[in-house]
């Protein structure tokens, strides 16, 4: 029998705000334990929550970016359950009236090859709501320690429809969702810091069946790769159970990314009964058109839309757009530079960014924005124009770029200082070629014996002598002319 997997993802995204969602003590990561608390966060007797406007803005913005319907009115509910990381022993969340409903995440599936665009799909969302994060438990052999720094951090829960069918789709979904959140300035989505957390509901069913199979919830998928691996592992596990003639049980499983295995979590004594009810300490939120319009004005173009526009407007190939668009700052840098060079130089700009600029970002561990301050779009544009006008040769670009990164000077100044500006004259070039042939009798013999590739052995010394001012085509032509003379001269 053929089976298909049905997967729904529940993603929790920490919203980047200065203060917590229901009190005004600072939110943050990596601070000494219990230094980001106040009476409200600790749920001291008598304390009351007050909504954070910025957290609401962020969720509405996320909803607008993902095409959700923004509820005209939403409210707050208490989700009651006891756990040592939950100071009030209830979580303020949204039950039956979330801020956002519907919407979708656009994903790109892997293409037939790395440099070929894959199929695009839209994965429908059920809802997005706002809630508060809990503290952090550190487990030891005999006891546990609780740090409440994280407690009360605004947390957005994004729930997809059960509309994903493979680990690859889930991977693509998270990649796209994360980029959208980062683009919108909503979250940094650093999974290592727990800023994006994912649970997956996975079931399988015979192809053609419409009813959902027995659902298994997979938890602790704490990197995007672990999400992919964990889901793939779980689908395989479920198939194996069914093929063995076994039956699946509804359960929660914990996936260990290090070992690639999962194990059932002992079900928490009794079924959950969260006793949701409207939080009497908070008032509802009413979202009007003005509010939405303001946030719509702050919504950036999303990566896939940008990719389509870059391909269309700048005629860039997929290999370049797929690199440029995923970092908003990089894409902005590209466009700022193209503004200065003119649209017809877009591909040269993109090539330079992908081949030099990005490599430098990686090596220096700088963001595109940070590096863009050192090498301004104006400097980058000047470099592209120097090449284009023939003032420096393309093989000098590496040297000039390196200079720009280290000295922050204008490319023209670097080219002049390094003697890279302009071209060598023909007489000088012919002499370097003669010297190179004379210095390598072995290669000469091989070439004359008919091994054409032996010519490359002469090129290195010539280019080196020319310090980048020699045009490789001209070097090749000169060498061939001189070598032909050697042949006829024999």
């Amino acid at each position, binding site marked *: 029998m053929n089976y298909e997997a049905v997967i729904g993802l529940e993603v929790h995204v920490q919203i980047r*705000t*200065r*203060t917590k969602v229901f009190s*005004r*003590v*600072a939110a943050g990561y990596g601070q*000494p*334990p*219990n*230094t*980001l*608390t*106040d*009476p409200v*966060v*600790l749920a*001291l007797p008598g304390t009351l929550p*007050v*909504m*954070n*406007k*910025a*957290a*609401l803005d962020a969720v509405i913005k996320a909803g607008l970016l993902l095409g959700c319907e923004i509820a005209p*009115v939403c*409210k707050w509910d208490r989700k009651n359950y*006891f756990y*040592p990381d939950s100071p009030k022993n209830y979580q303020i969340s949204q039950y039956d009236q979330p801020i956002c409903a519907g919407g979708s995440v656009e994903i790109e599936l892997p293409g037939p090859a790395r440099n070929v665009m894959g199929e695009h799909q839209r994965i429908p969302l059920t809802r997005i709501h706002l809630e508060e994060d809990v503290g952090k*438990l*550190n*487990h030891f052999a*005999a*006891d*546990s*320690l*609780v*740090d*409440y720094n994280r407690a009360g951090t605004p947390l957005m829960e994004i729930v997809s429809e059960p509309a994903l069918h493979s680990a690859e789709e889930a991977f693509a979904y998270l990649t796209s969702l994360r980029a959208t959140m980062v683009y919108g300035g909503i979250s940094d989505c650093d999974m290592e810091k727990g800023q994006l957390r994912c649970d997956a509901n996975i079931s399988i069913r015979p192809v053609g069946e419409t009813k959902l199979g027995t659902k298994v919830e997979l938890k602790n998928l704490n990197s995007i790769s672990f999400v992919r691996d964990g889901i793939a592992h779980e689908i395989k596990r479920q198939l194996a159970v069914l093929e063995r003639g076994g039956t699946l049980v509804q359960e929660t499983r914990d996936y260990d990314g290090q070992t690639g295995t999962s194990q059932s*979590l*002992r079900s*928490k*004594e*009794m079924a959950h*009964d969260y*006793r949701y009810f*409207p939080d*009497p300490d*908070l*008032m*509802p*939120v*009413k979202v009007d058109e003005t509010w939405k319009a303001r946030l719509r004005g702050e919504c950036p173009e999303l990566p896939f839309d940008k990719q389509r526009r870059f391909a269309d407007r700048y005629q860039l190939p997929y290999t370049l757009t797929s690199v440029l668009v995923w970092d908003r700052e990089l894409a902005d840098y590209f466009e700022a530079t193209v503004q200065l060079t003119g649209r017809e130089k877009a591909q040269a700009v993109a090539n330079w960014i992908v081949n030099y600029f990005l490599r430098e970002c990686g090596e220096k561990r700088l963001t595109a924005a940070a590096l863009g301050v050192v090498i301004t779009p104006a400097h980058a544009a000047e470099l592209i124009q120097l090449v284009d006008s023939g003032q420096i040769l393309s093989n000098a670009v590496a040297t000039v770029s390196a200079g720009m990164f280290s000295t922050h000077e204008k490319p023209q100044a670097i080219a002049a200082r390094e003697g890279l500006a302009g071209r060598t004259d023909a007489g000088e070039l012919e002499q370097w070629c003669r010297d190179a042939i004379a210095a390598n009798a072995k290669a000469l013999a091989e070439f004359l014996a008919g091994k054409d590739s032996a010519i490359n052995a002469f090129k290195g010394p010539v280019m080196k002598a020319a310090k980048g001012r020699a045009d490789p085509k001209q070097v090749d032509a000169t060498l061939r002319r001189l070598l032909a003379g050697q042949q006829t001269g024999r």
Partner: protein
Amino acid sequence: MASAPQLNIDHVAHLARLALSPEEKARYAQQLGDVLHHIEQLGKVDVTGVEPTAHAFPLVNVWAEDTPRPGLTAEAALRNAPAQRDHMVVVPKVVE
């Protein structure tokens, strides 16, 4: 209205995280049975089309700007903690 309320005292005490002695269970079950019986009469009220009142004087959009204020130091935060270590609250082993 739920017909003839049956208070499963074990289940409810579990949800409420209260350890009750057998005597307490028996007493509460009986007393709350009386109260629930009394409460039954709410079922007589016709509430068709009536909106629930969550707040006597409802407001909307009560919020604060995202501006930090000083919180508690770790020492102050833990001053009332029954047990602490390394600036954290100690709890007995958490069994999943």
